[in-house]
């Protein structure tokens, strides 16, 4: 039985707490959150011990792992504190606000033989896993370009400004949505080594960008463009899509559906030449406990099994570091021109 604690009980923290609590072989032994309304209700009805200061919790509880869902600017310190207490950690995305800090965490967790993971949940979406398989088996031939986008309706005219709208506190659409988009590109095409162009545009926010437009190049030679907009009122939920162009076909995918155009039919994937449509219902992926999407359960199961089996999780801190580095490259390109 693994002893786990959740640090930070906003929307993601509560969601992860619920899933962890329902999974077998995991015991949620403590929670840490500064909002007393939240901790009191949870303490009263779940009996889980609550702390207002996570450092006290780390001092007092015998934990194997923590799940960190604090505001972005606190990720770094919480990871370091966990490592100092010899506790493995899952931290919500983005990893940290500075790739140098991310690197320091990676080094320290290696030295201490601890596992770290970042919550890039796209990697646990079945359709994105399938397109990765398709690319690895050369289904659409050599990939020469892609368009990745993430749209949502987070910020409106007149939205109240919180840390989410302040870059210095880890807010802004690049850290929030952009990180998902960049991580998906890195998952599929590997490390990004060049930013060819980058524009960070403000629309409604005063201290952060609301729109990101960038063209990047991967070490593998693939180039692609990234477009992120968190002010798109037409979106009911956050929406990720990627269109991948290969010399022998094309893939258009989001978490619900997958369209593949092929010059030649593929027996391995059961696809005809021309257009093919597949849906989430073609890839049934049930989970021991469901909340908001199979992928949220699967990422936490990966975290737990990676600790138990001492293996690298699908969403490793090493990969998340590459995203942090890309985010910094985008800002450097926008503001310094290099």
């Amino acid at each position, binding site marked *: 039985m693994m002893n786990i604690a959740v640090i930070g009980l906003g929307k993601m923290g509560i969601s992860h707490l*619920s899933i962890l609590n329902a999974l077998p072989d995991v015991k949620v032994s403590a929670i840490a959150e500064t*909002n007393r309304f939240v901790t*009191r209700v949870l303490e009263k009805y779940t009996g889980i011990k609550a702390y207002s200061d996570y450092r006290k919790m780390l001092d007092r509880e015998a934990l194997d792992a923590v799940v960190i869902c604090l505001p972005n600017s606190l990720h770094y310190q919480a990871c370091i504190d966990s490592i100092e207490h010899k506790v493995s950690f899952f931290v919500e995305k983005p990893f940290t606000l500075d790739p140098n800090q991310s690197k320091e965490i990676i080094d320290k967790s290696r030295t201490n033989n601890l596992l770290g993971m970042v919550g890039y949940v796209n990697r646990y979406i079945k359709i994105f896993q399938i397109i990765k398989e398709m690319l690895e088996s050369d289904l659409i031939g050599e990939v020469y370009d892609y368009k990745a986008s993430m749209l949502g309706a987070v910020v409106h005219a007149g939205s109240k400004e919180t840390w989410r709208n302040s870059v210095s506190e880890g807010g802004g659409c690049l850290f929030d949505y952009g990180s998902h988009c960049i991580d998906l590109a890195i998952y599929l095409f590997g490390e990004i080594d060049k930013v060819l162009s980058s524009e960070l545009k403000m629309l409604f926010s005063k201290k952060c960008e609301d729109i990101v437009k960038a063209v990047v190049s991967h070490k593998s030679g693939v180039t692609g463009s990234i477009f992120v907009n968190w002010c798109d009122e037409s979106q009911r939920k956050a929406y990720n899509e990627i269109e991948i162009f290969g010399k022998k076909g094309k893939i258009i995918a989001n978490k619900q559906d997958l369209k593949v155009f092929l010059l030649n039919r593929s027996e391995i994937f059961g696809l005809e030449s021309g257009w093919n449509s597949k*849906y989430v*219902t073609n890839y049934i992926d049930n*989970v021991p*406990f*469901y909340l908001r999407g199979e992928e949220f359960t699967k990422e936490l199961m990966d975290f737990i099994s990676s600790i138990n089996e001492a293996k690298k999780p699908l969403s490793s801190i090493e990969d998340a570091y590459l995203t942090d580095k890309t985010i910094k490259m985008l800002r450097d390109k926008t503001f310094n021109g290099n």
Partner: protein
Amino acid sequence: MAINEENMDKIIFGDNQFFGVNHMSLDKTIVESQRFAKDEAIYKTLSDVHDIGINSFMFTTHERFENVFRLMRKDQKFTNFHFIPCIPYAHKYANAITELGIIGGIKKYIPGNLFLTGVKGAVSIISNEYVELMKMLIDSEMKLVEGLNVQALFLQNIVTDLLIGLGMDQILGEFATYVKQKYKILPGVITMNFAKATDIFSDKLHMPEVAICTPINKIGFRMNPSQKLVEESIALHKTPIIAMSIFASGAVPYKDAISYIASLKGIDSILFGASSKQHIEETYQLLNSNSN
């Protein structure tokens, strides 16, 4: 509010199509949202639903229904029609919580005018009367259906499943008890974790009357933890069961979908949605001819 002890209807009409909720494609979402851009179009479809012979409508408490229900209240044909709200309309709260924090989000939706209920709400937050707070939020949501023939009140899966995961069974029980006592209607929950939910209500809370609405379809889509376990659990029939997503967003052909449901003993009702009158009628006839 009507007191209604009768069983739920075998066929219940749902509301996903009105809001372009579609698990298959964005194009279909756009087509549907244009079809139902005007509130009158929703009213007209519900009028067709009634004329076809369907007598129950299950819906999320979306603000757009305020207008639709205003029209329906004036229309005598809906006097005995069964309204089944599902609360809360989660997007509303999720957005408020992101922007205003948990307490700010709750305060925004405490019923009535701020001066009268703001004080009571603030007291509940401070003194940790969580159940009182939940009751106020239920009352707030129920205002939408005032004067209508409400047969049951369901909790949306996002809340049901969150509470199940947290192990807050007691709150689920408080919800069901309040719905029965205050509104004299049937309590129910929607869930993506059927086996756990049915065990909680029948075995832990001893409330086998609570109806459970969950995806049940031939391909096992959203039947967690597994299709086999959900089927076994359905066979035990510990609580009333409403099957939803029986076509799995169109992935299961009509006849297959219905013969699968018919092969499972223990399903009491079927929830389905469709946009056109012809499509609704065909589905209804097909379901009705197999309903035994």
